[in-house]
C-alpha cells in the first residue's frame, strides 16, 4: 500500500485565516505552548530528544541533542536563532510554511526558547521574500499583543522577545555561523569552530540555530507526544516532512508525508512527470546533494537511505528533470550559483568555483576537452573536504555525480553545445518560446 500523505504542519493551510492568531487558535494553535510552559524546560528538551526529530535544514542533526549542548546555569544569556534563509536551489518549503502557517513557527520559537532558557529569539529570514517576512512579523506582533511573547508569558514567569530580521541576499547565510555573523551586522562569512554556537554563538553566548521546519515541528511534538511523532517515518528518520516537489512534474507543490515515502510515491501524488516525459535525473534535497536517476525512485526518502545511495536527503525538496534537460547546462548553472554565492573567505571555494565555472561554461558552449573532464573531477576533489565550510563541499557535488551518470553528455559537449544537444525550448513548462 502506498505511503499516505500526512498533513500536520500543512493540515489547515486551506483556512484563509490560518496566518492570524484567531485562525491558528481555532485549529488548536498555542495549546502546545500552554502545555510546555507547565513543563520543566529539561523535560521539553528530553521530549524533543526522544522524538528523534532531526534538523530539516539539510544536515539532519538531532534537534534535541543540539538543544542539550547548551550549557545551563552558566549565567550567560542564551539565544534561539531560526534559520529562515532558505536559499538552496530546489529548497522551497520554509518560505511556504512562513507564508501559510507563521504561528506554528512562532509557537515553536516560544517553546524552544523556553526549553533552552533563551529570553531572546531571532528569526533570520532571507531578504528576498518580503511576503514571508511580513507574515512572520505580523504573527509575532499578534503573539506579543496576546501576551504569548513578552514578559511573564501566560503567567509562567518566562520572558521572551522575538525579533524578525531581514537578510539581504547571501546564500552563505544559511550556514549557521555565517548567519550569526550576518545577524551581528557583519559580512556573512562562516566562523571557525570550535567554539560551537551552542557554547559561543550569537554575541559569544550559547545559541541554538534551528531551521524553520524543525521549529515548526516542535509544537506538534509537545502537543501530541513522542509516540504520535514516532509512528511516522523510520527509526533513524522519525516524523514527517514538508516535501516540496518541483520540476517537470504535473503537479509541483507541497506534499507533507512521512519520512520513508519513496520518490516514486511522491511523484505519483504530484501527478507523475508531465505528459510524454520521464525522469532523467532528480535531486532529493537541494543542489548541494548529488543527483540520482530513475533507478533510485523506489528508495525511501530517509536520511539513512539517501546516504546509502551516495546522496543526502538535504532539505527534502526533490527536483525532477525530464529527458529534455541538458545535464551540462544544469550543472553549469548550479556552479555559476555557487561561484556567485561563495563568500570569498577560503581559497578552495573562492578560486575553485571561479575556475570550475569557467571550464563548465566552455562545455556548455561545446568547447570542453576530454582532459578537462578529468581536470574538473580533480578540481572538485581539491575543494571537497578542504574548504572552510559546507558551501565548498556543495559546489564540488554536482559535477562528479553528473559525470557519473551522464558522461556521454560531457563528451558530446567537447564538440556540441548544450543547446544543440537539447533544445532549450523543449524543457520549458509553457508552450514553447511562443508563449508570448
Amino acid at each position, binding site marked *: 500500500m502506498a505511503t*499516505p*500523505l*500526512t*498533513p*500536520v504542519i*500543512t*493540515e489547515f*493551510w*486551506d483556512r*484563509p485565516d*490560518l*496566518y492570524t492568531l484567531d485562525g491558528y487558535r481555532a485549529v488548536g494553535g498555542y495549546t502546545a505552548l500552554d502545555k510546555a510552559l507547565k513543563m520543566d524546560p529539561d523535560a521539553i528538551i528530553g521530549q524533543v530528544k526522544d522524538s528523534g526529530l532531526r534538523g530539516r535544514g539539510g544536515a539532519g542533526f538531532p534537534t534535541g541533542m543540539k538543544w542539550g549542548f547548551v550549557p545551563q546555569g552558566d549565567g550567560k544569556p542564551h539565544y534561539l536563532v531560526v534559520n529562515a534563509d*532558505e536559499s*538552496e*536551489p*530546489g529548497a*522551497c518549503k520554509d*518560505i*511556504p510554511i512562513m*507564508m*501559510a502557517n507563521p504561528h506554528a513557527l512562532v509557537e515553536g520559537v516560544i517553546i524552544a526558547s523556553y526549553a533552552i532558557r533563551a529570553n531572546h529569539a531571532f528569526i533570520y529570514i532571507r*531578504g*528576498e*521574500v*518580503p*511576503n514571508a*517576512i*511580513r*507574515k512572520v512579523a*505580523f504573527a509575532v*506582533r499578534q503573539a506579543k499583543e496576546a501576551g504569548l511573547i513578552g514578559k511573564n508569558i501566560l503567567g509562567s514567569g518566562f520572558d521572551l522577545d522575538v525579533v524578525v530580521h*531581514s*537578510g*539581504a*541576499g*547571501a*546564500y552563505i547565510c544559511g550556514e549557521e555561523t555565517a548567519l550569526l555573523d550576518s545577524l551581528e*551586522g*557583519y*559580512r556573512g562569512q562562516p566562523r571557525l569552530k570550535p567554539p560551537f554556537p551552542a557554547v559561543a554563538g550569537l554575541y559569544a553566548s550559547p545559541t541554538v540555530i534551528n531551521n524553520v521546519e524543525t521549529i515548526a515541528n516542535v509544537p506538534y511534538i509537545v502537543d501530541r507526544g513522542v509516540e*504520535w511523532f514516532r*509512528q511516522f517515518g523510520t527509526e533513524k528518520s522519525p516524523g*514527517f516532512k514538508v516535501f516540496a516537489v*518541483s*520540476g517537470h512534474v504535473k503537479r*509541483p*507543490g*507541497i506534499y*507533507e508525508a*512521512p519520512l520513508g515515502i519513496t520518490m516514486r510515491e511522491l511523484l505519483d501524488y504530484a501527478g507523475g512527470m508531465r505528459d510524454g516525459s520521464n525522469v532523467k535525473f532528480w535531486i532529493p534535497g537541494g543542489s548541494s546533494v548529488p543527483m540520482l536517476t530513475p533507478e533510485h525512485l523506489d528508495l525511501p526518502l530517509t536520511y539513512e537511505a539517501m546516504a546509502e545511495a551516495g546522496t543526502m536527503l538535504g532539505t527534502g525538496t526533490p527536483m525532477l*528533470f525530464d529527458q529534455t534537460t541538458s545535464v551540462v547546462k*544544469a550543472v553549469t*548553472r548550479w556552479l555559476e550559483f555557487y561561484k*556567485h*554565492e561563495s*563568500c570569498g573567505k577560503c581559497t578552495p571555494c573562492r578560486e575553485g568555483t571561479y575556475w570550475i565555472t569557467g571550464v563548465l561554461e566552455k562545455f556548455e558552449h561545446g568547447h570542453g576537452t576530454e582532459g578537462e573532464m578529468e581536470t574538473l573531477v580533480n578540481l572538485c576533489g581539491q575543494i571537497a573536504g578542504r574548504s572552510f565550510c559546507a558551501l565548498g563541499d556543495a559546489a564540488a557535488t554536482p559535477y562528479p555525480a553528473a559525470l557519473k551518470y551522464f558522461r556521454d553528455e560531457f563528451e558530446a559537449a567537447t564538440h556540441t553545445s548544450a543547446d544543440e544537444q537539447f533544445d*532549450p525550448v523543449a524543457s*520549458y513548462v509553457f508552450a514553447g518560446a511562443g*508563449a*508570448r
Partner: protein
Amino acid sequence: MSISESTRDQMREIAGRYPSARSALLPMLHLAQSEEDEITTDGINACADVLGITPAEVTAVATFYTMYKRTKVGKHHIGVCTNTLCGLLGGDAVWDALTEATGAGHNTASADGEFFLERIECQAACTHAPVMTVDWEYMDDVTPSSAVEVIEQLRRGEEVHSTRGPVIRDFEATEHTLAFPDDGLADAPSVDAKMLAGLTIAKERGMSGRDI
C-alpha cells in the same frame, strides 16, 4: 539626496531592537536604500554614525549582500530566477523577453528608470517555476508573455497583485518593509493551489497526519 534626520531616528529605532546595536546594520541598510533607491556614501555614513563604526565596516557589509545596489534601481526591481530549475523550465526565455521589453540588462535600470532587471538566484519557489519577482514580491509561474504583460501593466499604472502576496507598490516600499516588516499588508492571500497540492489530495483520499 541624503539621509534625513527622521530616517536616522528610524535607524536608531531599529538598532534598539537588538541586544547589540550593530545587529541592526542589515535592516538599516535596507532603510537607507528605501530612502535613496540605492546604497550611497551618504547612506553608508549614516549607518556608520548611528552605530559608531567606520564607513569601511559598513561598506564591507553593504558590498557583500546582493540586495544592496550601488546604482539607482528606479521604480521597480524585476527579478527573474535563472538558476537551474527556473532557468531551464523557462526562466531564460522570460529573461530574454524582459530585457527586450524594458531595454534593461542584468543589474541595470531601463532608460526611463522604471525597471531594474536582475538575474536572481533561487527564490525558494521552485514549485512555482519559472519565478519572477516584482519588488521582491512573487510572480509565480510566469511565461514570457505574462511577464511582459506585468511590465506593461506597471507601465500603465495599473494595479498589479503578487500571485502570493500583496499589491505591488515599488522597490523603495519593499525595502522599507525589510526594515519595518510589520507593514500592514499581511492580509494579502499567500497560499495557492500548489501549496495545497498535497493537502488537497489528502483530503480527497481521507489521509491525515493525526494518526496512521
